[in-house]
């Protein structure tokens, strides 16, 4: 044999990639689509009801977030959310439910290290970066808006 997969690290990486099973991407996308869509539809139902009761859109969206986060925390605490997540993948990760689950799950995980440094300290080990990047980016957006006094692209 002239060349072996072990000749260089690159050869081996290519070889391993050809040997490793792929995720069933079509099935995963289908599940992600309908679960994610369903979660958003539930959100829309709640939001429509809030607006029907006379709340403005911002307040309605906040209530949607809080209710979905509560449902996620509940499902996580009865050990059900990880099963949904395994089935739906991005379908439950990308909506606000994924953010809530990534705060609730380490909080539960590190309960054995105590309620202050365990639950309190480790709560943001997974979701911390989301807040860091989200909040920092929003401050930049605010400052840029202050400088240019416009949102740079206005369509129409």
């Amino acid at each position, binding site marked *: *044999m002239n060349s*072996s*997969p*072990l000749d260089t*690290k*690159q050869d*081996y*990486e290519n*070889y*391993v990639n050809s*040997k*490793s*099973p*792929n*995720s069933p991407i079509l099935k*995963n996308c289908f599940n992600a689509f309908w679960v994610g869509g369903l979660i958003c539809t539930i959100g829309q139902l709640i939001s429509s009801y809030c607006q029907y009761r006379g709340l403005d859109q911002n307040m309605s969206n906040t209530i949607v977030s809080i209710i979905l986060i509560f449902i996620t925390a509940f499902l*996580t605490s009865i*050990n059900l*959310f*990880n*099963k*949904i*997540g*395994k089935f*739906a*993948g991005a379908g*439950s*990760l990308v909506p606000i439910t*994924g953010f809530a*689950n*990534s705060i*609730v*799950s*380490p909080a*539960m*995980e*590190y309960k*054995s290290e105590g309620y202050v440094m365990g639950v309190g300290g480790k709560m943001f*080990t*997974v979701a911390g970066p989301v807040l860091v990047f989200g909040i920092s980016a929003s401050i930049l957006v605010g400052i840029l808006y202050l400088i240019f006094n416009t949102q740079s692209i206005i369509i129409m």
Partner: protein
Amino acid sequence: MNRIGNQTIKFNNPPTILETASIVGPKESNGPLAKYFDKCLEDEFWGENSWEKAESKMIKEASNLVISKSNLPIDDINFCLAGDLLNQCISSSFGLREINIPFFGIFGACSTFAESLCLGSILVESNAANNVLCSVSSHFCSAEKQFRFPLELGNQRPQSAQWTVTGSGCAILSKTGQGPYITHITPGKIIDMGIKDSNNMGAAMAPAALDTLITHFKDTGRNPSYYDGIFTGDLGYVGKEILKELALSKGYNINSNYNDCGVLIFDKDSQDTHSGGSGCACAATVFSGYLFNQLKEKKYKKILLIATGALTNSTTAQQGESIPGIAHAVSIEI
């Protein structure tokens, strides 16, 4: 005891594996090898309030079990070699803190069981000890917590990911006994082929297993058909296929008598373990439960156990380092 070839040690008065014991968790208890294990747990906490405590309890109880099965008084066991996957090997040191046997904590990631058998047989052969206890453990939940994500996080495991075996496997090596005997050991070198994906450990460890396998054959002058069975520790389905192909390309056909403990311990289809089992306890419980039984019943007479380890940790993984692999081979004959 003398060294043959580059890195193999041949024992002139081969130590006997006197007795073994295994305790496994709930998932392993539903696997194909369940009937070979000494004790199957129904819940992963085993009455404790943390997984770390549960893992310590497993290695403690499995060690006590193997001692009582061997009928040896505790004073006759001269040394204990133990290890696990958690930082600073706390499962073994906490689990065995009351056992009153001189203790060596060892770490070889998932290859720790073979490492303890290697070092233990050297201690016995060199007359430093009459009996040595080798114990290892791993726990799915404590390993996930340390190396990956919280258990309740709703994420998908890639198809190449492996499932850490929950359990503990122990063996007592003895100067005297009727076998099975450890006749040769081939401690392996660290081999790093640059794999960085911690969800593909089998691929990261396969080159190390290949190196140890070929070195063993070259040093001993044996060939694959000498053994009734060749078993790697936890290469899983991905690593097993890679090792088979690479060995064949180097002129060693192991297709007919080779299997992997991580493939044996779970039923891939019904248990959803993707690429198979991993962890210190994978090789240890499969050997202590299934393989030792087969040796005792003379279904296998000569086996080669190659436990493989991925020498990584969560910090190096985050720093973008690759995963070095290691593999130690132990030749066991009756």
